[in-house]
Each structure stands twice: as C-alpha cells, then as structure tokens.
C-alpha cells in the first residue's frame, strides 16, 4: 500500500539572481514499512526533499500525496495538524525538549494528540524499553549521551504511530557504536511497527542497512535501488 506519492515535484529557490533548483522533477513513491535511504552529495537536495515530504516546505510545482491527501491543498494550520497525526521526525541534532525527561519527551506528541494517560504510559514504556532506555525514563537530555538522545528522538517520532518517519542525517552526530545501535533499533522498530522510515544520509552504515537506496544529484533522482 502506497504511503507517499511524489509526482514531478520541483523546488526552486529564486531569492538570488541565479535560481537554484534544489529539487528538480522528482517522482517517487514509498510503500508501507519501507526502510529507505536518500543519499547524495551535499547540496543534492536530500534535506529539501525530506522537508517537502514532511510538509515543512511547499513545492514550487508538482504534488505530494500522503495517504491520499495532497499536501498542497492544506492550509498552514491544517499542515501542522497533519504532521502531528501522520509524520514522525528525527533531526540530526536530536532536538529534544531540554526541560523534559526522556519519558516526557516521548509522550509529548501523544499529549498533543490528547491520548489518555494510561495509554500514553503503556506506549511510552514500551518504546523506551524497545530503545534500551527503560532505566533512564527520568533523565533529562543534558544527562544523556548523543546516542541515547537520538534514541529518545526516534521513540518520540514513533510514539503516536505515524504513517512514516523522516530522519534527516540521524547518525551524523553519533560515534560509530552509537550509530550502529541506533540503526539496529530503527530497523527493529520498522519491522515490528510496520512504519515507513525514510532517511537522508551520508553514512555508509545507514546505506548498507537500507532496503532501498535513492540517489539524488542536483535535485534529480539518478538511481533508485531496491534491495531484496
């Protein structure tokens, strides 16, 4: 079943004298439970494409359908609500809320979605145990390593069972051991939760574990390899 359908999407920045085609005519689709990596050199349009898929940015032309909804038809406030209920985000710099504990960070999205407390608690403990941080529920981000913070960020992204998770260079700030642990956890959750993961990455380890690798150059898809 298709979760994301991208049809001839372009993103052109024309704020300077020379227009920059960050994404140039990309057509892609992602199915449920895919584990896909978007790779390419710096400036190839990976982050821009993720921002467009995540509804954080608007395409100059083309359309992006998420589970049958055309993002271009949504107003700004509707887009925020759509992201809340359909998309999980993992950022390069973790971006946890520093004043909240690991548990509170994970349940934050569920609070925004007004989940009942009992359900929130079950889901939070389930995820924190799954990422191996069941014993750090009350730790604040400042008291955790980068790898641990990123694992909490993954748990937060998955908490409300989104249709897919977008991860922008999730291992870029991690040492190799933390990166491996994170990837194993993400692959396990992808398998268990049947949630699509899409990464932008430079990291060869991520590429190696991905089931599908899409290569971008100058905003265009130059290859799309599905691995068995």
């Amino acid at each position, binding site marked *: 079943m298709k979760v994301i359908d991208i049809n001839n999407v372009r993103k052109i920045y024309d704020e300077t004298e020379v227009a920059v085609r960050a994404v140039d005519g990309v057509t892609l689709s992602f199915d449920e439970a895919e584990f896909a990596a978007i790779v390419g050199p710096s400036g190839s349009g990976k982050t821009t494409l993720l*921002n467009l898929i*995540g509804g*954080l*940015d608007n395409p100059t032309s083309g359309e992006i359908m998420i589970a049958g909804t055309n993002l271009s038809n949504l107003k700004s*406030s509707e887009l*925020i*609500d759509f*992201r*809340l*209920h359909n*998309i*999980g*985000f993992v*950022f390069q*710099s973790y*971006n946890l*809320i*520093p*004043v*909240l504990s690991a548990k*509170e960070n994970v349940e*934050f*999205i569920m*609070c*925004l979605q007004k989940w009942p407390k009992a359900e929130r608690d079950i889901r939070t403990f389930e995820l924190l145990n799954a990422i191996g941080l069941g014993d750090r529920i009350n730790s604040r981000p400042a008291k955790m390593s980068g790898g641990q913070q990123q694992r909490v960020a993954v748990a*937060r992204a998955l908490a409300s069972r989104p249709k897919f998770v977008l991860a922008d260079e999730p291992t870029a700030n991690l040492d190799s051991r933390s990166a491996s642990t994170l990837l194993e956890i993400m692959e396990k959750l992808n398998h268990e939760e049947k949630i699509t993961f899409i990464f932008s990455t430079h990291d060869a380890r991520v590429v190696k574990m991905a089931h599908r690798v899409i290569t971008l150059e100058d905003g265009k898809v130059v290859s799309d390899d599905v691995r068995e």
Partner: protein
Amino acid sequence: MIRSISWKNVWRNKSRSLVVIVAVTLGIISGVLLVGIMKGWVEQRLHDAIYNEVSHVQIHNKEYLKNEEIHLTVNDTAEIIKAIEDLPGLLGWVKRTRMIAMVNTSWANTGVSVYGIDPGKEKHVTEIWKRMVPGAGEYLDEAKPGNILISDKTAEILKLKQYIITDEVINLLKSENVPATVLSKLDTLKDVRFRSPKDFREALKSELKKKELDKFGNLIVGKALDYRIRNKVQITISDETGTPVQGTFRVCGIYKTTNTGFDQATVFVNANELAKLYDGKAILIHEISILLNNVENAGLVKEKLAGISPDNEINTWQELAPDAAMMNDYMVMYYIIFIGIIMLALAFGIINTMMMTILERTRELGMLMAIGMNRKKVFSMIMLETMFLTLVGAVAGMLSGWVIIELLGKTGIHFASWGEGFEEWGFAAIVYPVITPDFFLFITIMVIVTAIISSIWPARKALKLNPVETLRTE
C-alpha cells in the same frame, strides 16, 4: 503538558528569571507600600475629619456658613432634634454655639472659632478628648467653670507653649543618659523661660555643638516643654448688637489633632459660659453635628432632614471636608495610576527577557512547530511562561508587601521632619499604612493583564518563525 513545560522553562535560565522575578517583587512591594501609605493617610484623614472636625452630617442656618454671625442660628431646632433622635443608626449628636472670636494672652493674640459645647455629650460625637497632649491638662468639664480648651498650635501662637530647663528637667535628661558634658552646657539656660520653640532652639544652638544638638536636641526640647496650663486667656466676641464683649478663661488642657489648620482655628469652652458672655437668655445653636454608625448613610440622613426646615442647610461630611471626600473618591484612581506606572516599567523588562528567551530557543520552537505543535499551543506556552514568571514575582511581592504593611501598620512611619508640613494640610505626621484584600485582588488582575500584554509581542515573534529555517540554524 503545556503548563508543565512553561513552568519548567521559567527555571531554565535561573539567574535571568530571578532578575525579572526580583524586579517584579520589588515593583510590587513599592506599589503595595506606596498605596498602603496613601490609603493609610487618606483613611486617617477621613477618620480625623469625621471624628474631630465635621462628623457625618451637620446642620446650620442657611446663611451661617457664608457669614458666621451670632444671630444666624439653626431654625426649627425642636423638630430637627426630634427627627435626629428618631434616626436609625444614630450614634450621637450635639448642638454647639460657634462664634468668631479673638483670643489673647499677655504676649500674643489670634483669631479663632470658639465653640460652646456640652463636654459630656461632645465625647459621644467627637474624639478631641482622646487627642489631649499627655501631661498637658485635661479635657473640658461642665462641672469645672471658667475653662478653655486650646490646641497645641494655638498655645504656640499665644506663647503658652513655653520651654524652661529646671533641675527636674536636668534629672529627667540624666535618666535618659544625656552626657554630663551636654548637661553642663545647659546650665546657662537654666530657669530661663522661652516663649517659643524657635527661641529655645536658637538658645540651644548657641550652647551645644551641632552633633550634640542633632543627637539630643529633640529630647531636650521635649523634656523642657512647659505648657502654661491655668494661664488666663481673654476671649473677645461680638454680641447680638455687634458690641465687642470680653471674658476671661483659664487654659484647662491642650489638644492636638493631625490637622494644624483645624487646631489653630478652634478653641472650646462650656456652652453655658459662652452664653453668659454674649448675655444670651438661652444657649444659641449655630451647629448641630450628627454621628452615624455607617458613613454610607450620611446622604440618606441629609435627605431625611432636608424637608424639616427650608431655612437650614444640611451638609454631609463630603461637603464639609471636600478634600478628604475627594481623596477617598479618587483612591481607586491612585491605585491604577501608581500600579499602572510600576507595571508599565516592569512590562518592558518582561518583554525584553521573553524576547531573549525566544531568540535563544528559535530552533526548539521551530522543532515544536515541525512535529505538530500548533500556533495556539505555542502562543499559550509563551504566554503561560510570561505569566508564571510575573506571578512568582507578584506573589513574592504581595506577601513581602503585606508583611511590611502589617509591621508598619503597628509602628507607623514617622515623617518627623515633614510633620508640620503634612499637618498643615490635615495629614498625620505618623502614618499607619493600610492595605485591604481588594487591593491584592486588584494587583493580581493588573499583574495578569501586564503578563498577557507583555507576552503578546514575544509570542507573535515565535509564531512567525519558519520551522525549516529555524531547524537550519546552529
């Protein structure tokens, strides 16, 4: 969750938040103190105006207040007195003779209003008997004829407030630990009578060093004070034919209220003795004063008595002491002005702090919007954060202010150096600050309004953030 994040965010940068909290606390304390002092003054002035000067309602002949002539007495007194005695909530009433007079001693003279009163009844309506200067005689007594009650200020004008250093004064000063070196310098002033505070102070100045005068001057002046109780005072009034008539009275006591203007213009004698002076066959009634159990009923009483005699004028305390009434009426406006100015100043500090907070958390706010926190919630979070920051300071300020007011309400604040100036305007030199719960409610509302207004700009700034751009920032 939003409330919890907002509260935790307040304590994220503790020192910065504490600066704002302390500023709010100090601002509120100064507001509470300022309003407490103001309210204390106004309430004291109101109390003194009603209980020493004008009561709640007064009745005069229609022409009397314009032209205080002896024949302008209250009309239809029998009906009026009957109506007064039937008033519900009546605490007391008195009738008085009131005449313009010249009083003089061997050394000075001054113009006053002389009141012929019934001292026993007067005690139920006015509190002058409670304002007697300790050790300076006693209140009027109908059983003791030939007496006059004058004020401290009148005594000073008539040079009956004298100063003399006697052996007894020296002993008193010794017991107050005044050094022998200072006491020895007072020898040259011993047994010399000074007829004014100014003369006595000048004499002290010539004998003592400045430091000694600063330290012991007030004590020496206080101990050497010698009111000339039982001194003769001559009163001159005009009788019904306009002929000046004179009588001699002896000072029985000295009173002192917080209103020097009232004090210097008011002396009291027994009404029947004043009647003898103008040779009246009966005691003339120029003024009837009524005291009620509820200040709010003054207007109703006025309405009730107004129809009895069209030739009388009935005034409430608001009309007789318009300064006190005006201050009372405008008290709420003073609250708003004082607290408004303080809040305005604080608002700038709060806005500045919140703007810095937004600037520092640009990336985090962008992330929150990216993951699905809507604008309403972002706005609420920043508004709550501002509110918490301000309310913590406000609660601390109100509590501290309340404690300070409670303490000062017992000890009073002594504006000794400005005392005379204040008292000339009818305000006490010692003020007992007062704060009522409604003021705290008012200040809480003002703080909440200030916090909401102060949060609007930073919150709008946050709402304008673009998640994509903020997430790019390092």
